[in-house]
């Protein structure tokens, strides 16, 4: 991490305290049992951290919720909450929105490390009892519950594509549940990616939507009209259904290459420290969300540039004199995004794949990724499912070498750099191995 840590509000910006809208602390207004639950949860989180079990944010929330099942709603009451959800880019966009809202100088509660189910959200709010703002990454499946509990002011919908399908619901079902939940969300502004048909369908039912043309690189899960099931056609103007009237909604914000047209028609260059087009998409969503809170795009963009790595993603670590850069890719759409930010060949790449519970037990998705773009550079392969990767690369005629771990690859790299692409638990293992330097 780079040291920016808005999570938990441990370093609330001093000027913000004066400007806070809520006069008395939300914490002091909580019923006794909720206060107790928060205290017990906080203590458990501290013990968990002391015991070296992660950052302790989830266990605190779990215990707190056991004492007071309505804790999330109670902790969210009186705050302006932003929920961020979608298949890819949740953690990064949460971070970018938090950075942009920093312009307001108010304390912000956020689950910045990706603990995105009810317990993680509860813990994030409990750790920042006085923060008037909250930016909360929310698991796709939990959005309806969390929306009802927090009465969010803004919901940001990024994208939907196949991901861990052995345990997640089919994505059309996810979109349908969102649609039902958002239809009755009053006093809530939905900021939605108009270029993703499933997102557009889910958001279209909401009373208040700000459409953002944030782009969609992965089309494989949206060839079918979410409304009527017919074939969707695409051209440079967007997508439309061949049979019903469903079509890409007109967008108020448009990302065009590396520039964005804002809601007032002004053009800004989206220059970020984070690499790749996917992060420019995330950034534009963050700009649109921030504007709901009165933050001007130009001010917000300056803040977005300060974000250089997010929970270890995109971090560069030195190892045995080489620069190792870590990229997380959890599903086919994520791998496309990772390929987009690779250094030019012949910079070598190490791929690492596991298939544990958080990754999805099924490795079939490897065959949805086109690895031919890796031809022309040294490719190393590791992880618990390295043999699945080996067979996959062989089929794409990409020469590769099996290695035991990161150091094996690092030691074989003659030049100065190595890019690493790993899926979820493989990524965490590599971070731990590199001493959490990342």
């Amino acid at each position, binding site marked *: 991490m780079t040291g920016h840590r808005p999570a938990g509000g441990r370093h609330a910006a001093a000027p913000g305290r004066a400007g806070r809208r809520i006069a008395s602390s939300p914490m002091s207004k909580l019923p006794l049992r909720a206060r107790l639950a928060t205290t017990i949860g906080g203590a458990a989180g501290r013990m968990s951290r002391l015991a070296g079990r992660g950052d302790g944010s989830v266990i605190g929330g779990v215990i707190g919720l056991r004492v007071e099942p309505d804790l999330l709603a109670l902790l969210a009451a009186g705050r302006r909450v932003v929920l961020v959800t979608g298949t890819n880019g949740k953690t990064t966009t949460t971070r970018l929105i938090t950075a942009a809202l920093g312009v307001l100088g108010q304390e912000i509660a956020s689950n910045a490390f990706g603990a995105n189910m009810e317990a993680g959200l509860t813990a994030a709010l409990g750790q920042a009892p006085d923060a008037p703002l909250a930016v909360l990454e929310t698991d796709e499946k939990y959005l309806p519950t969390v929306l009802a509990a927090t009465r969010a002011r803004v919901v940001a919908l990024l994208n939907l594509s196949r991901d861990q399908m052995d345990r997640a619901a089919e994505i*059309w079902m996810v979109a349908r549940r969102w649609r039902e939940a958002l239809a009755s969300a009053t006093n809530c502004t939905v900021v939605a990616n108009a270029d993703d048909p499933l997102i557009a369908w889910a958001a279209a039912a909401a009373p208040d939507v700000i459409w953002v043309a944030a782009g969609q690189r992965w089309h494989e899960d949206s060839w079918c009209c979410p409304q009527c*099931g017919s074939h969707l056609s695409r051209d440079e103007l967007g997508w439309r259904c061949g049979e019903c009237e469903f079509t890409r909604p007109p967008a108020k914000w448009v990302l065009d290459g590396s520039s964005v047209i804002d809601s007032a028609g002004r053009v800004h260059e989206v220059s970020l420290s984070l690499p790749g087009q996917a992060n420019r998409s995330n950034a534009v969503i963050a700009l649109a969300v921030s504007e709901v809170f009165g933050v001007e795009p130009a001010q917000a963009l300056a803040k977005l540039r300060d974000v250089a790595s997010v929970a270890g993603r995109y971090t560069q670590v030195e190892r045995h004199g080489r620069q190792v850069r870590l990229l997380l890719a959890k599903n086919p759409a994520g791998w496309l995004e990772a390929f987009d930010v690779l250094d030019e060949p012949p910079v070598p790449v190490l791929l690492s794949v596991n298939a544990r519970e958080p990754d999805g037990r*099924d490795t079939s998705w490897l065959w949805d990724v086109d690895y031919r773009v890796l031809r022309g550079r040294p490719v190393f392969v590791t992880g618990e499912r390295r043999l699945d990767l080996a067979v996959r690369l062989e089929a794409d005629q990409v020469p590769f070498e099996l290695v035991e771990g990161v150091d094996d690859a690092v030691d074989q790299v003659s030049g100065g750099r190595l890019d690493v692409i790993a899926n979820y638990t493989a990524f965490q293992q590599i971070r731990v191995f590199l001493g959490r330097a990342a």
Partner: protein
Amino acid sequence: MAAGPPPAGGTHARNSPGPSALRLVWVYPDLLSTYGDRGNLLVLERRARLRGIDVESVLVNADQPVPRQGDVYLMGGGEDLPQILAARRLRADGGLAAAAEGGAVVFAVCAGYQLLGTEFGGEEGQPVPGLEILNIRSGRGQRRGVGEILADVSPALGVPRLTGFENHQGVTELGPGVAALAKVVTGVGNGDGTEGARAGRMIGTYLHGPVLVRNPGLADLLLTWAAGPLPALRADDEEWTQRLREQRLAAVPAGSA
């Protein structure tokens, strides 16, 4: 480009296919390709080319006609809505049914497998008419079968134990004239201890996505039906596949259904 979308009538062939090229037709990759189904096409292409057989692969989207002159037709898995749309289109098109009638090899996975039959369960469990080219009937079961699956192939086919992954809530009944592809060792399959179905040169299975990757014997069976007897591959060309296959077979306790 992503793993799609395929260009209209797109072909993959690297060799210029002669008139004798083996024609592989992937039916509706835009609708039925949810779990890495491209793997089956890539494995067939590779195993044919390693034996000197020219291959021409045709990817047919749902808004295009299905060619009737293919040698092997592949159909993959999909969510409920795409599956229903695919059934509607394929029934109207008639190409796949005509090819199957003409003796083409058909290999269908998961949603594609259910589609071959007389009916399958829609998004609310309602019966939806299938293509009626394989005498099977599918519906929605009580629980979702998710996990590694092992199944022993009917000995007549000479294919070793199948290893794969399943993720479906379908149950399938086989009618007269249709035999089970295999007997479940671990997992759910059709729901009655059998797995998949076959009739003539048509095979359907619940082992989803790139099932041919771990089961080269099944891939070679399809190629043999289409192109005649095949020489064995060089050990080098089988090494990674065999290592993966052994690892997956060893990873699943037999009989833990």
